[in-house]
Protein backbone atom coordinates (compact mmCIF):
# COMPACT_ATOMS: atom_id res chain seq x y z
CA UNK A 1 0.00 0.00 0.00
CA UNK A 2 1.30 3.40 -1.03
CA UNK A 3 1.80 5.72 1.95
CA UNK A 4 1.10 9.43 1.43
CA UNK A 5 0.16 12.39 3.58
CA UNK A 6 -3.23 14.03 3.16
CA UNK A 7 -1.65 17.50 3.28
CA UNK A 8 0.20 16.62 0.07
CA UNK A 9 -3.17 15.76 -1.45
CA UNK A 10 -4.24 19.29 -0.58
CA UNK A 11 -1.07 20.73 -2.12
CA UNK A 12 -1.50 18.81 -5.38
CA UNK A 13 -5.20 19.69 -5.54
CA UNK A 14 -4.47 23.37 -4.94
CA UNK A 15 -1.83 23.39 -7.65
CA UNK A 16 -4.26 21.85 -10.10
CA UNK A 17 -6.90 24.41 -9.12
CA UNK A 18 -4.39 27.19 -9.70
CA UNK A 19 -4.02 25.99 -13.28
CA UNK A 20 -7.71 25.64 -14.06
CA UNK A 21 -9.34 28.48 -12.09
CA UNK A 22 -7.86 31.98 -12.14
CA UNK A 23 -10.22 33.10 -9.38
CA UNK A 24 -8.47 30.85 -6.87
CA UNK A 25 -6.02 32.65 -4.58
CA UNK A 26 -4.06 31.16 -1.68
CA UNK A 27 -3.07 32.68 1.65
CA UNK A 28 -0.66 31.22 4.15
CA UNK A 29 0.46 32.18 7.66
CA UNK A 30 4.15 31.19 7.53
CA UNK A 31 3.61 27.46 6.94
CA UNK A 32 3.90 27.23 3.16
CA UNK A 33 6.12 24.15 3.23
CA UNK A 34 4.09 22.34 5.88
CA UNK A 35 0.87 22.96 3.94
CA UNK A 36 2.53 21.89 0.64
CA UNK A 37 1.58 25.19 -0.98
CA UNK A 38 4.96 25.82 -2.63
CA UNK A 39 3.96 24.60 -6.08
CA UNK A 40 0.92 26.88 -6.14
CA UNK A 41 3.09 29.74 -4.92
CA UNK A 42 5.76 29.15 -7.57
CA UNK A 43 3.28 28.79 -10.41
CA UNK A 44 1.07 31.72 -9.31
CA UNK A 45 3.20 34.27 -7.45
CA UNK A 46 0.59 36.98 -8.02
CA UNK A 47 -2.15 34.84 -6.49
CA UNK A 48 -0.21 33.69 -3.44
CA UNK A 49 -0.26 35.85 -0.30
CA UNK A 50 2.23 35.32 2.51
CA UNK A 51 0.47 36.82 5.53
CA UNK A 52 3.06 36.10 8.21
CA UNK A 53 2.22 34.74 11.65
CA UNK A 54 -1.06 36.62 11.85
CA UNK A 55 -3.93 34.20 11.40
CA UNK A 56 -6.69 36.63 12.39
CA UNK A 57 -5.53 39.03 9.70
CA UNK A 58 -5.37 36.15 7.22
CA UNK A 59 -9.02 35.22 7.76
CA UNK A 60 -10.10 38.86 7.43
CA UNK A 61 -8.08 39.40 4.26
CA UNK A 62 -9.52 36.20 2.79
CA UNK A 63 -13.05 37.41 3.55
CA UNK A 64 -12.30 40.74 1.86
CA UNK A 65 -10.82 39.09 -1.23
CA UNK A 66 -14.11 37.35 -1.98
CA UNK A 67 -15.49 40.83 -2.70
CA UNK A 68 -14.44 41.15 -6.32
CA UNK A 69 -14.90 37.44 -6.99
CA UNK A 70 -11.76 35.73 -5.71
CA UNK A 71 -11.94 32.26 -4.14
CA UNK A 72 -9.46 32.35 -1.26
CA UNK A 73 -7.91 29.19 0.22
CA UNK A 74 -6.25 29.85 3.57
CA UNK A 75 -3.62 27.46 4.84
CA UNK A 76 -2.24 26.88 8.31
CA UNK A 77 -2.37 24.22 11.03
CA UNK A 78 -5.86 23.18 12.09
CA UNK A 79 -5.45 24.68 15.55
CA UNK A 80 -4.52 28.10 14.15
CA UNK A 81 -7.21 27.76 11.46
CA UNK A 82 -10.03 27.41 13.98
CA UNK A 83 -9.70 28.01 17.71
CA UNK A 84 -7.25 30.87 17.30
CA UNK A 85 -9.49 32.71 14.83
CA UNK A 86 -12.97 31.56 15.75
CA UNK A 87 -14.54 34.99 16.04
CA UNK A 88 -12.95 36.15 12.78
CA UNK A 89 -14.40 33.11 11.01
CA UNK A 90 -17.73 33.53 12.75
CA UNK A 91 -18.28 37.19 11.86
CA UNK A 92 -16.24 37.92 8.73
CA UNK A 93 -16.70 34.54 6.98
CA UNK A 94 -19.63 32.44 8.20
CA UNK A 95 -22.12 35.15 9.20
CA UNK A 96 -21.03 37.28 6.25
CA UNK A 97 -21.52 34.27 3.91
CA UNK A 98 -18.08 34.67 2.33
CA UNK A 99 -16.70 32.16 -0.15
CA UNK A 100 -13.58 31.33 1.87
CA UNK A 101 -12.01 27.85 2.02
CA UNK A 102 -10.30 27.30 5.36
CA UNK A 103 -7.76 24.56 4.75
CA UNK A 104 -6.34 23.06 7.89
CA UNK A 105 -3.44 20.66 8.18
CA UNK A 106 -1.91 18.79 11.13
CA UNK A 107 -5.32 18.09 12.68
CA UNK A 108 -5.61 15.69 15.59
CA UNK A 109 -3.07 13.73 17.62
CA UNK A 110 -1.30 12.37 14.53
CA UNK A 111 0.44 15.71 14.26
CA UNK A 112 2.68 13.84 16.65
CA UNK A 113 5.78 15.12 18.35
CA UNK A 114 4.82 18.82 18.61
CA UNK A 115 2.35 17.87 21.32
CA UNK A 116 -0.97 19.08 22.61
CA UNK A 117 -0.49 22.82 21.95
CA UNK A 118 -0.71 22.01 18.26
CA UNK A 119 -3.01 18.95 18.29
CA UNK A 120 -6.46 20.43 17.89
CA UNK A 121 -9.21 17.91 18.68
CA UNK A 122 -12.12 20.33 18.89
CA UNK A 123 -12.06 21.86 15.41
CA UNK A 124 -14.85 19.82 13.79
CA UNK A 125 -17.17 20.76 16.63
CA UNK A 126 -16.32 24.44 16.46
CA UNK A 127 -16.72 24.59 12.71
CA UNK A 128 -19.90 22.52 12.44
CA UNK A 129 -21.63 24.78 14.95
CA UNK A 130 -21.27 27.75 12.60
CA UNK A 131 -24.28 28.30 10.33
CA UNK A 132 -23.36 28.25 6.60
CA UNK A 133 -20.15 26.27 7.22
CA UNK A 134 -19.42 23.03 5.34
CA UNK A 135 -17.07 20.67 7.23
CA UNK A 136 -15.01 18.09 5.33
CA UNK A 137 -12.46 15.60 6.68
CA UNK A 138 -11.14 13.38 3.84
CA UNK A 139 -9.43 10.09 4.56
CA UNK A 140 -6.35 9.86 2.32
CA UNK A 141 -4.21 11.63 -0.25
CA UNK A 142 -6.43 10.94 -3.26
CA UNK A 143 -9.59 11.99 -1.48
CA UNK A 144 -8.02 15.15 -0.05
CA UNK A 145 -6.88 16.14 -3.53
CA UNK A 146 -10.36 15.53 -4.93
CA UNK A 147 -12.02 17.41 -2.07
CA UNK A 148 -9.70 20.40 -2.49
CA UNK A 149 -10.68 20.66 -6.15
CA UNK A 150 -14.38 20.13 -5.44
CA UNK A 151 -14.77 22.83 -2.79
CA UNK A 152 -13.77 25.55 -5.25
CA UNK A 153 -17.07 24.89 -7.03
CA UNK A 154 -19.12 25.22 -3.84
CA UNK A 155 -20.19 28.81 -3.26
CA UNK A 156 -19.83 29.37 0.48
CA UNK A 157 -17.49 28.85 3.41
CA UNK A 158 -15.84 25.45 3.78
CA UNK A 159 -13.62 23.96 6.46
CA UNK A 160 -11.30 21.32 4.96
CA UNK A 161 -9.43 19.27 7.55
CA UNK A 162 -6.44 17.05 6.86
CA UNK A 163 -3.28 15.80 8.51
CA UNK A 164 0.46 15.48 8.71
CA UNK A 165 1.54 11.81 8.68
CA UNK A 166 1.91 9.47 5.75
CA UNK A 167 -1.02 7.07 5.77
CA UNK A 168 -2.30 4.45 3.32
CA UNK A 169 -3.54 5.97 0.06
CA UNK A 170 -6.34 3.54 -0.72
CA UNK A 171 -9.15 5.41 -2.45
CA UNK A 172 -9.20 5.70 -6.27
CA UNK A 173 -6.97 8.12 -8.16
CA UNK A 174 -8.89 10.85 -9.97
CA UNK A 175 -12.11 10.20 -8.05
CA UNK A 176 -14.96 12.67 -8.18
CA UNK A 177 -15.67 14.21 -4.78
CA UNK A 178 -19.26 15.00 -3.91
CA UNK A 179 -19.75 17.19 -0.82
CA UNK A 180 -22.14 15.58 1.64
CA UNK A 181 -22.20 12.14 -0.03
CA UNK A 182 -21.34 9.22 2.24
CA UNK A 183 -19.22 6.51 0.62
CA UNK A 184 -19.81 2.82 1.23
CA UNK A 185 -16.39 1.19 1.41
CA UNK A 186 -17.31 -2.25 2.69
CA UNK A 187 -20.53 -4.18 2.87
CA UNK A 188 -21.59 -5.78 6.15
CA UNK A 189 -24.69 -6.91 7.98
CA UNK A 190 -24.00 -6.96 11.72
CA UNK A 191 -22.88 -3.38 12.42
CA UNK A 192 -22.19 -0.13 10.60
CA UNK A 193 -18.96 1.74 11.28
CA UNK A 194 -19.14 5.41 10.31
CA UNK A 195 -15.63 6.81 10.11
CA UNK A 196 -13.97 10.03 9.02
CA UNK A 197 -10.42 11.15 8.24
CA UNK A 198 -7.49 8.96 9.18
CA UNK A 199 -9.77 6.57 11.06
CA UNK A 200 -11.45 5.38 7.86
CA UNK A 201 -8.39 3.20 7.15
CA UNK A 202 -8.30 2.05 10.77
CA UNK A 203 -11.96 1.08 10.42
CA UNK A 204 -11.24 -1.01 7.33
CA UNK A 205 -8.45 -2.75 9.22
CA UNK A 206 -10.83 -3.31 12.13
CA UNK A 207 -13.40 -4.81 9.74
CA UNK A 208 -10.85 -7.41 8.61
CA UNK A 209 -10.20 -8.46 12.20
CA UNK A 210 -13.92 -8.52 12.92
CA UNK A 211 -14.50 -10.73 9.86
CA UNK A 212 -11.99 -13.20 11.27
CA UNK A 213 -14.17 -13.23 14.40
CA UNK A 214 -17.32 -13.88 12.39
CA UNK A 215 -18.63 -10.31 12.56
CA UNK A 216 -19.74 -8.68 9.31
CA UNK A 217 -19.03 -4.94 9.59
CA UNK A 218 -20.20 -2.37 7.09
CA UNK A 219 -17.77 0.57 6.75
CA UNK A 220 -18.99 3.95 5.52
CA UNK A 221 -16.73 6.95 4.96
CA UNK A 222 -18.38 10.13 6.22
CA UNK A 223 -15.93 12.59 4.67
CA UNK A 224 -18.45 15.41 5.08
CA UNK A 225 -19.55 15.97 8.66
CA UNK A 226 -21.72 18.90 7.65
CA UNK A 227 -23.99 18.66 5.78
CA UNK A 228 -24.35 15.12 7.10
CA UNK A 229 -25.61 12.44 4.70
CA UNK A 230 -28.57 11.65 6.95
CA UNK A 231 -30.31 9.45 4.41
CA UNK A 232 -27.31 7.17 3.94
CA UNK A 233 -26.79 6.87 7.68
CA UNK A 234 -30.43 6.09 8.46
CA UNK A 235 -30.61 3.59 5.59
CA UNK A 236 -27.55 1.73 6.81
CA UNK A 237 -28.69 1.69 10.43
CA UNK A 238 -32.14 0.39 9.49
CA UNK A 239 -30.38 -2.77 8.28
CA UNK A 240 -27.53 -3.31 10.75
CA UNK A 241 -29.28 -1.85 13.82
CA UNK A 242 -26.11 -0.87 15.67
CA UNK A 243 -23.42 1.71 15.10
CA UNK A 244 -19.80 2.58 15.80
CA UNK A 245 -18.41 6.00 14.96
CA UNK A 246 -14.66 6.60 14.59
CA UNK A 247 -12.78 9.86 14.37
CA UNK A 248 -9.56 11.55 15.40
CA UNK A 249 -11.43 14.21 17.36
CA UNK A 250 -13.10 14.84 20.70
CA UNK A 251 -16.21 12.78 21.33
CA UNK A 252 -17.93 16.06 22.14
CA UNK A 253 -18.74 17.89 18.94
CA UNK A 254 -17.42 15.45 16.38
CA UNK A 255 -18.85 13.02 13.84
CA UNK A 256 -20.10 10.67 16.58
CA UNK A 257 -21.95 13.53 18.18
CA UNK A 258 -23.66 14.35 14.88
CA UNK A 259 -24.59 10.71 14.23
CA UNK A 260 -25.87 10.27 17.80
CA UNK A 261 -28.12 13.31 17.44
CA UNK A 262 -29.48 12.03 14.15
CA UNK A 263 -30.17 8.54 15.49
CA UNK A 264 -31.56 9.85 18.76
CA UNK A 265 -34.19 11.78 16.85
CA UNK A 266 -34.97 9.12 14.27
CA UNK A 267 -33.89 5.62 15.17
CA UNK A 268 -32.20 5.14 18.52
CA UNK A 269 -30.04 2.04 18.31
CA UNK A 270 -26.99 0.98 20.34
CA UNK A 271 -24.07 3.26 19.52
CA UNK A 272 -20.42 3.31 20.54
CA UNK A 273 -18.11 6.21 19.77
CA UNK A 274 -14.38 5.97 19.12
CA UNK A 275 -12.73 9.34 19.72
CA UNK A 276 -10.81 11.33 22.29
CA UNK A 277 -12.58 11.43 25.62
CA UNK A 278 -12.28 14.94 27.07
CA UNK A 279 -8.51 15.10 27.29
CA UNK A 280 -5.62 16.85 25.56
CA UNK A 281 -3.05 14.95 23.51
CA UNK A 282 0.74 14.80 24.01
CA UNK A 283 4.02 14.31 22.18
CA UNK A 284 4.74 10.98 20.54
CA UNK A 285 4.80 9.18 17.20
CA UNK A 286 1.48 9.30 15.35
CA UNK A 287 0.71 5.59 15.57
CA UNK A 288 1.73 5.47 19.23
CA UNK A 289 -0.69 8.28 19.92
CA UNK A 290 -3.54 6.61 18.01
CA UNK A 291 -3.00 3.54 20.17
CA UNK A 292 -2.64 5.38 23.49
CA UNK A 293 -5.74 7.50 22.94
CA UNK A 294 -7.87 4.58 21.78
CA UNK A 295 -8.16 5.62 18.14
CA UNK A 296 -6.66 2.65 16.29
CA UNK A 297 -8.16 -0.43 14.64
CA UNK A 298 -7.92 -2.34 17.91
CA UNK A 299 -10.05 0.27 19.70
CA UNK A 300 -12.60 0.10 16.87
CA UNK A 301 -12.76 -3.70 17.16
CA UNK A 302 -13.36 -3.41 20.91
CA UNK A 303 -16.09 -0.82 20.44
CA UNK A 304 -17.73 -2.93 17.74
CA UNK A 305 -17.84 -6.06 19.86
CA UNK A 306 -19.34 -4.03 22.68
CA UNK A 307 -22.06 -2.50 20.52
CA UNK A 308 -22.97 -5.88 19.06
CA UNK A 309 -23.35 -7.36 22.54
CA UNK A 310 -25.55 -4.40 23.45
CA UNK A 311 -27.66 -4.99 20.35
CA UNK A 312 -28.10 -8.64 21.29
CA UNK A 313 -29.20 -7.71 24.81
CA UNK A 314 -31.39 -4.93 23.42
CA UNK A 315 -33.41 -7.51 21.53
Amino acid sequence: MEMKDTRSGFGVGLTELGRRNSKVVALCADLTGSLKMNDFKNENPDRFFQIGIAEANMIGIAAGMTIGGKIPFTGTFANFSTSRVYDQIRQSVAYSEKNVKICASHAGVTLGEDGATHQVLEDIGMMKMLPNMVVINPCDFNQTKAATIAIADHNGPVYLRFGRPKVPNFTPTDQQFEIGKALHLQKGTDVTIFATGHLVWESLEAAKTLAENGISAEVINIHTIKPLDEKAILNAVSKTKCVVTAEEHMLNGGLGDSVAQLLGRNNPVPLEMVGVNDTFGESGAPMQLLEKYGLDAKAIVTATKKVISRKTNYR
Partner: protein
Amino acid sequence: MQTTTELKDICTQIRRDIVRMVHANNSGHPGGSLGCTEYFVALYFEIMQHNANFNMDGKDEDIFFLSNGHISPVWYATLARAGYFEVAELATFRKINSRLQGHPTTHDHLEGVRVASGSLGQGLSVAIGSALSKKLNNDDKLIYSLHGDGELQEGQIWEALMYASANKVDNLIATIDYNKKQIDGSIDDVLTLGNLKSKLEAFDWIVLEEKEGNNLEAVINILNKAKSLVGNNKPVTILLHTEMGNGVDYMMGTHKWHGSAPNDEQLEIALSQNAETLGDY
Protein backbone atom coordinates in the same frame (compact mmCIF):
# COMPACT_ATOMS: atom_id res chain seq x y z
CA MET B 1 -22.05 67.37 -7.12
CA GLN B 2 -23.96 69.14 -4.39
CA THR B 3 -23.36 72.54 -2.84
CA THR B 4 -21.94 72.84 0.63
CA THR B 5 -25.29 74.10 1.87
CA GLU B 6 -27.02 71.04 0.45
CA LEU B 7 -24.44 68.73 2.04
CA LYS B 8 -24.89 70.45 5.39
CA ASP B 9 -28.64 69.97 5.09
CA ILE B 10 -28.02 66.26 4.56
CA CYS B 11 -25.86 66.21 7.73
CA THR B 12 -28.62 67.83 9.75
CA GLN B 13 -31.23 65.43 8.46
CA ILE B 14 -29.00 62.42 9.15
CA ARG B 15 -28.49 63.66 12.71
CA ARG B 16 -32.28 63.72 13.10
CA ASP B 17 -32.49 60.23 11.62
CA ILE B 18 -29.85 58.95 14.07
CA VAL B 19 -31.50 60.23 17.24
CA ARG B 20 -34.96 59.17 16.08
CA MET B 21 -33.78 55.64 15.18
CA VAL B 22 -32.05 55.18 18.52
CA HIS B 23 -34.94 56.71 20.48
CA ALA B 24 -37.54 54.55 18.73
CA ASN B 25 -36.23 51.33 20.23
CA ASN B 26 -34.40 52.77 23.23
CA SER B 27 -31.10 51.24 22.12
CA GLY B 28 -28.18 51.87 19.78
CA HIS B 29 -25.11 54.07 19.65
CA PRO B 30 -25.85 57.76 19.01
CA GLY B 31 -22.56 59.29 20.24
CA GLY B 32 -20.14 57.93 17.67
CA SER B 33 -22.81 58.08 14.97
CA LEU B 34 -23.35 61.81 15.44
CA GLY B 35 -19.60 62.42 15.58
CA CYS B 36 -19.04 60.74 12.21
CA THR B 37 -21.90 62.42 10.33
CA GLU B 38 -19.69 64.77 8.34
CA TYR B 39 -17.35 61.92 7.38
CA PHE B 40 -20.22 59.81 6.03
CA VAL B 41 -21.83 62.66 4.14
CA ALA B 42 -18.49 63.70 2.64
CA LEU B 43 -17.76 60.12 1.64
CA TYR B 44 -21.11 59.17 0.10
CA PHE B 45 -22.17 62.53 -1.35
CA GLU B 46 -18.84 63.98 -2.46
CA ILE B 47 -15.80 61.71 -2.39
CA MET B 48 -16.66 58.17 -3.45
CA GLN B 49 -17.58 56.99 -6.92
CA HIS B 50 -20.23 54.49 -6.00
CA ASN B 51 -23.41 52.94 -7.25
CA ALA B 52 -26.55 52.93 -5.11
CA ASN B 53 -27.75 50.09 -7.35
CA PHE B 54 -25.83 47.75 -5.11
CA ASN B 55 -23.81 44.72 -6.11
CA MET B 56 -21.57 42.80 -3.72
CA ASP B 57 -18.44 42.74 -5.86
CA GLY B 58 -18.35 46.52 -6.32
CA LYS B 59 -16.33 46.29 -9.52
CA ASP B 60 -15.23 49.65 -10.95
CA GLU B 61 -16.57 51.58 -7.98
CA ASP B 62 -15.15 52.75 -4.66
CA ILE B 63 -16.04 50.53 -1.71
CA PHE B 64 -16.54 51.44 1.94
CA PHE B 65 -16.19 49.19 5.01
CA LEU B 66 -17.38 50.13 8.50
CA SER B 67 -15.19 48.33 11.01
CA ASN B 68 -16.71 49.85 14.16
CA GLY B 69 -20.14 48.45 13.34
CA HIS B 70 -21.85 49.89 16.40
CA ILE B 71 -22.20 53.27 14.70
CA SER B 72 -24.62 51.61 12.28
CA PRO B 73 -27.25 54.40 12.69
CA VAL B 74 -25.17 56.96 10.80
CA TRP B 75 -24.31 54.43 8.08
CA TYR B 76 -27.90 53.25 7.62
CA ALA B 77 -29.18 56.83 7.52
CA THR B 78 -26.48 57.78 4.98
CA LEU B 79 -27.18 54.75 2.77
CA ALA B 80 -30.90 55.47 2.82
CA ARG B 81 -30.42 59.17 2.08
CA ALA B 82 -28.00 58.22 -0.74
CA GLY B 83 -30.67 56.02 -2.32
CA TYR B 84 -29.48 52.52 -1.43
CA PHE B 85 -32.86 51.70 0.14
CA GLU B 86 -36.04 53.49 1.16
CA VAL B 87 -35.68 55.95 4.04
CA ALA B 88 -38.88 54.50 5.52
CA GLU B 89 -36.91 51.36 6.32
CA LEU B 90 -34.94 53.34 8.93
CA ALA B 91 -38.01 52.94 11.15
CA THR B 92 -37.24 49.22 11.43
CA PHE B 93 -33.78 49.74 13.00
CA ARG B 94 -33.08 47.11 15.69
CA LYS B 95 -36.64 45.79 15.51
CA ILE B 96 -37.63 42.18 14.93
CA ASN B 97 -37.48 40.97 11.29
CA SER B 98 -35.50 44.06 10.21
CA ARG B 99 -32.64 44.18 7.74
CA LEU B 100 -31.23 47.01 9.86
CA GLN B 101 -29.66 44.87 12.55
CA GLY B 102 -28.08 46.45 15.62
CA HIS B 103 -24.74 45.87 13.97
CA PRO B 104 -24.45 45.70 10.17
CA THR B 105 -24.80 42.35 8.44
CA THR B 106 -24.96 40.94 4.95
CA HIS B 107 -27.40 38.30 6.12
CA ASP B 108 -30.52 39.99 4.85
CA HIS B 109 -28.85 41.53 1.81
CA LEU B 110 -29.09 45.13 2.96
CA GLU B 111 -27.83 47.22 0.06
CA GLY B 112 -24.49 48.86 0.85
CA VAL B 113 -23.21 46.35 3.42
CA ARG B 114 -20.52 43.92 2.25
CA VAL B 115 -19.40 42.29 5.49
CA ALA B 116 -20.74 41.97 9.02
CA SER B 117 -19.06 44.11 11.66
CA GLY B 118 -19.58 44.66 15.35
CA SER B 119 -17.02 42.40 16.93
CA LEU B 120 -14.20 44.93 16.74
CA GLY B 121 -10.85 44.87 15.00
CA GLN B 122 -11.76 42.86 11.90
CA GLY B 123 -12.61 45.52 9.33
CA LEU B 124 -9.13 46.64 8.38
CA SER B 125 -8.16 43.09 7.38
CA VAL B 126 -11.31 42.80 5.28
CA ALA B 127 -10.64 46.17 3.66
CA ILE B 128 -7.10 45.07 2.80
CA GLY B 129 -8.44 41.86 1.25
CA SER B 130 -10.87 43.84 -0.86
CA ALA B 131 -8.07 46.22 -1.88
CA LEU B 132 -5.93 43.25 -2.97
CA SER B 133 -8.87 41.87 -4.92
CA LYS B 134 -9.20 45.22 -6.75
CA LYS B 135 -5.52 45.11 -7.66
CA LEU B 136 -5.85 41.55 -9.00
CA ASN B 137 -8.82 42.69 -11.07
CA ASN B 138 -6.94 45.74 -12.41
CA ASP B 139 -9.68 47.87 -10.89
CA ASP B 140 -8.27 51.29 -10.06
CA LYS B 141 -11.06 52.37 -7.73
CA LEU B 142 -10.38 52.76 -4.01
CA ILE B 143 -11.23 51.14 -0.70
CA TYR B 144 -12.30 53.33 2.21
CA SER B 145 -12.66 52.10 5.77
CA LEU B 146 -13.62 53.61 9.11
CA HIS B 147 -12.36 52.44 12.49
CA GLY B 148 -13.02 53.51 16.04
CA ASP B 149 -10.06 54.73 18.03
CA GLY B 150 -10.93 52.43 20.93
CA GLU B 151 -11.01 49.63 18.37
CA LEU B 152 -7.28 50.08 17.88
CA GLN B 153 -6.84 48.27 21.19
CA GLU B 154 -7.60 45.06 19.27
CA GLY B 155 -4.43 43.22 18.21
CA GLN B 156 -5.73 42.25 14.77
CA ILE B 157 -5.66 45.91 13.75
CA TRP B 158 -1.90 45.97 14.23
CA GLU B 159 -1.45 42.76 12.27
CA ALA B 160 -3.34 44.45 9.46
CA LEU B 161 -1.44 47.73 9.74
CA MET B 162 1.84 45.81 9.47
CA TYR B 163 0.65 43.77 6.50
CA ALA B 164 -0.68 46.71 4.50
CA SER B 165 2.53 48.73 4.54
CA ALA B 166 4.80 45.68 4.05
CA ASN B 167 2.77 44.73 0.98
CA LYS B 168 2.23 48.23 -0.42
CA VAL B 169 -1.56 48.19 -0.23
CA ASP B 170 -1.76 51.73 -1.57
CA ASN B 171 -5.36 51.74 -2.82
CA LEU B 172 -6.77 52.00 0.68
CA ILE B 173 -7.73 55.04 2.79
CA ALA B 174 -8.40 53.98 6.39
CA THR B 175 -9.90 56.66 8.61
CA ILE B 176 -9.76 56.54 12.37
CA ASP B 177 -12.62 58.17 14.24
CA TYR B 178 -10.41 59.86 16.82
CA ASN B 179 -12.92 60.99 19.44
CA LYS B 180 -10.77 59.67 22.30
CA LYS B 181 -13.67 58.04 24.08
CA GLN B 182 -14.88 54.49 24.59
CA ILE B 183 -17.60 52.80 26.65
CA ASP B 184 -15.82 52.84 29.98
CA GLY B 185 -14.53 56.40 29.69
CA SER B 186 -11.74 58.31 27.99
CA ILE B 187 -9.27 56.23 26.00
CA ASP B 188 -6.43 57.62 28.05
CA ASP B 189 -8.07 56.24 31.19
CA VAL B 190 -9.02 52.86 29.76
CA LEU B 191 -5.92 52.00 27.70
CA THR B 192 -4.09 54.91 26.17
CA LEU B 193 -3.07 54.79 22.53
CA GLY B 194 -0.14 57.03 23.39
CA ASN B 195 1.25 58.93 20.46
CA LEU B 196 -1.00 57.37 17.87
CA LYS B 197 0.34 59.39 14.94
CA SER B 198 3.91 58.27 15.69
CA LYS B 199 2.80 54.67 16.03
CA LEU B 200 1.03 54.72 12.66
CA GLU B 201 4.03 56.40 11.04
CA ALA B 202 6.29 53.78 12.61
CA PHE B 203 4.10 51.18 10.88
CA ASP B 204 5.03 52.95 7.65
CA TRP B 205 1.66 54.40 6.71
CA ILE B 206 1.09 57.85 5.23
CA VAL B 207 -0.64 59.56 8.16
CA LEU B 208 -2.87 62.58 7.67
CA GLU B 209 -4.52 64.39 10.54
CA GLU B 210 -7.60 66.60 10.60
CA LYS B 211 -8.39 68.36 13.84
CA GLU B 212 -11.85 69.50 12.69
CA GLY B 213 -13.60 66.27 11.91
CA ASN B 214 -17.02 67.87 12.30
CA ASN B 215 -16.26 70.66 9.84
CA LEU B 216 -17.68 69.40 6.55
CA GLU B 217 -15.33 71.40 4.29
CA ALA B 218 -12.33 70.27 6.33
CA VAL B 219 -13.41 66.62 6.08
CA ILE B 220 -13.89 66.87 2.32
CA ASN B 221 -10.49 68.52 1.97
CA ILE B 222 -8.64 65.90 3.99
CA LEU B 223 -10.32 63.06 2.09
CA ASN B 224 -9.37 64.72 -1.19
CA LYS B 225 -5.82 65.07 0.04
CA ALA B 226 -5.80 61.37 0.96
CA LYS B 227 -7.05 60.53 -2.54
CA SER B 228 -4.16 62.50 -4.01
CA LEU B 229 -1.71 60.35 -2.04
CA VAL B 230 -2.87 56.87 -3.07
CA GLY B 231 -0.75 54.83 -5.46
CA ASN B 232 2.52 55.72 -3.76
CA ASN B 233 3.35 52.23 -2.47
CA LYS B 234 2.01 53.07 0.97
CA PRO B 235 -1.40 52.81 2.60
CA VAL B 236 -3.01 56.06 3.74
CA THR B 237 -4.70 56.76 7.04
CA ILE B 238 -6.53 59.81 8.36
CA LEU B 239 -6.65 60.62 12.05
CA LEU B 240 -9.99 62.35 12.07
CA HIS B 241 -10.59 64.22 15.32
CA THR B 242 -14.32 64.14 15.93
CA GLU B 243 -16.56 64.95 18.83
CA MET B 244 -18.71 62.15 20.18
CA GLY B 245 -22.32 63.33 20.16
CA ASN B 246 -21.61 66.30 17.89
CA GLY B 247 -24.71 68.29 16.97
CA VAL B 248 -26.67 67.53 20.14
CA ASP B 249 -25.39 69.77 22.92
CA TYR B 250 -26.04 67.54 25.89
CA MET B 251 -24.38 64.56 24.20
CA MET B 252 -21.13 66.38 23.46
CA GLY B 253 -17.99 66.21 25.56
CA THR B 254 -18.89 62.98 27.34
CA HIS B 255 -18.61 59.24 26.70
CA LYS B 256 -22.01 58.67 28.34
CA TRP B 257 -23.92 58.70 25.04
CA HIS B 258 -21.72 56.06 23.44
CA GLY B 259 -24.45 53.46 23.71
CA SER B 260 -27.47 55.08 25.36
CA ALA B 261 -30.68 56.34 23.80
CA PRO B 262 -32.40 59.66 24.54
CA ASN B 263 -35.80 59.67 26.25
CA ASP B 264 -38.82 61.54 24.81
CA GLU B 265 -37.84 64.86 26.28
CA GLN B 266 -34.20 64.52 25.29
CA LEU B 267 -35.26 63.55 21.78
CA GLU B 268 -37.26 66.77 21.41
CA ILE B 269 -34.25 68.81 22.51
CA ALA B 270 -32.00 66.97 20.03
CA LEU B 271 -34.49 67.52 17.20
CA SER B 272 -34.88 71.20 18.06
CA GLN B 273 -31.13 71.55 17.48
CA ASN B 274 -31.27 69.83 14.06
CA ALA B 275 -33.90 71.18 11.71
CA GLU B 276 -35.85 68.85 9.41
CA THR B 277 -34.26 69.61 6.05
CA LEU B 278 -35.10 66.69 3.77
CA GLY B 279 -38.17 65.27 5.46
CA ASP B 280 -38.20 62.78 8.32
CA TYR B 281 -38.77 59.14 7.48
